[in-house]
């Protein structure tokens, strides 16, 4: 019994730590108030959902969905108050966010509803313990830092999840916009469209190099018709892409180079004589086929 108490006290100290420092007696207080909040679960949850409704939060979700999430959040809230473990809450917050973000729930809504719950519970504690000022103070001293930690953890978890999803989507978009197309045997076409930033250039290079290996390509036609302009840094990346492709084993023909881009390439010192450029995509493909046709047929067996 004594061991369990000490452990609980230590663990509850996790979330009881606030600007006021660790209060060793908080564990008992927290247990008491959690018991009270659990006893009144039904009515408090109802009250909370009423407030969510009047604040017009979660408008994109159905009543049943809101109920289900609210019960779940409520229980997790109390569980965190009780155990003091923020780790469990963090992973719950990430799971919850993963569920509700596709439902177009905004950050302010998530922060809003957690704060509403905090308020609803605070009010309940207030009305329950207000007879004795000392008790009330002890209760609130334990509750407030814990509740604030919880609100913070849920909000941060939500934001982190959103950022993760946005990054993921950006990557997917990046991959979609520079597809590597196997057209004929041993020939890849890489049509580039739009403005290229260094990150996209990097991704482009990786996709191309892997594409060359996977498709066993010997020639790549890299078409820049859809690229309005490039700065020196990106032009440099393009040159590196051509050089890296050669190292892996494929020749690159660059097509659709606008005069402005040619100018940039010359300015950064690219010897255009070294880079194989053809006017348009069609011409590039024809040249590629010529290259491939030549390579496939041995010229003269006697030179071996």
């Amino acid at each position, binding site marked *: 019994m004594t061991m369990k108490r000490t452990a609980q006290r230590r663990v509850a100290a996790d979330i009881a730590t606030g600007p006021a420092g660790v209060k060793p007696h908080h564990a008992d207080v927290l247990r008491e108030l959690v018991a009270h909040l659990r006893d009144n679960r039904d009515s408090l949850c109802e009250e909370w959902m009423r407030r969510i409704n009047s604040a017009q939060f979660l408008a994109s979700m159905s009543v049943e969905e809101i109920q289900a999430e609210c019960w779940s959040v409520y229980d997790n809230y109390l569980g965190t108050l009780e155990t003091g473990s923020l780790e469990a809450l963090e992973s719950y917050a990430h799971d919850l966010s993963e569920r509700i973000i596709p439902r177009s729930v905004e950050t302010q809504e998530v922060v809003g509803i957690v704060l509403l719950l905090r308020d609803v519970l605070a009010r309940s504690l207030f009305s329950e313990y207000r007879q004795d000022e000392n008790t009330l103070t002890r209760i609130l001293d334990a509750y407030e830092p814990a509740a604030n930690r919880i609100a913070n953890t849920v909000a941060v978890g939500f934001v982190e999840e959103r950022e993760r999803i946005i990054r993921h989507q950006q990557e997917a978009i990046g991959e979609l916009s520079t597809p590597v197309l196997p057209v004929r045997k041993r020939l890849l076409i890489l049509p580039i469209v739009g403005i290229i930033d260094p990150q996209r250039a990097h991704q482009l*290079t*990786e996709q191309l*190099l*892997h594409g*060359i*290996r996977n498709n*066993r390509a*010997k020639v790549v036609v890299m078409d820049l018709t859809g690229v309005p302009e490039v700065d020196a840094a990106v032009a440099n990346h393009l040159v*590196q892409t051509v*050089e*890296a*492709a*050669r*190292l*892996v*084993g*494929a020749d690159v023909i660059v097509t659709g180079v606008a005069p402005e881009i040619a100018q940039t390439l010359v300015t950064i010192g690219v010897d255009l004589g070294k880079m194989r450029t053809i006017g348009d995509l069609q011409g590039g493909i024809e040249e590629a086929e010529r290259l491939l046709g030549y*390579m496939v047929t*041995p*010229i*003269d*067996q006697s*030179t*071996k």
Partner: protein
Amino acid sequence: MEIPVLKQNNYLIASIQAALCDGDLIALREKLVNLVTKNRSSGVILDVSGLDVMDSFSARIMRDITHMIRLRGSRSVIVGIQPAVAFSMVQLGLTLHGVPTALDLEEGLAYLDSGPAPPP
């Protein structure tokens, strides 16, 4: 660690692994030149698909081998440079200009089989 050199038709094939030391590469250079002369090989394939990193030293040795073999009247081709390695190399400025490359062993053999390129 000695690098094994295999003979296939009239070609020599050397497989270069990751954990090789500088001394091993220098020894390989000597060995290949000797073997090319001795066997009158018409081509050498350097397979670097097991190489995790190509730094300035390795790149220099690769280039040396290619030049020395060319001086012996033979041709050579480097195959199997991994995408990540190729990317690092160009960023570091190691472009291996003038050194023939091909995707893998099969392509390397096809390259050697196709004979020297005619003038453009």
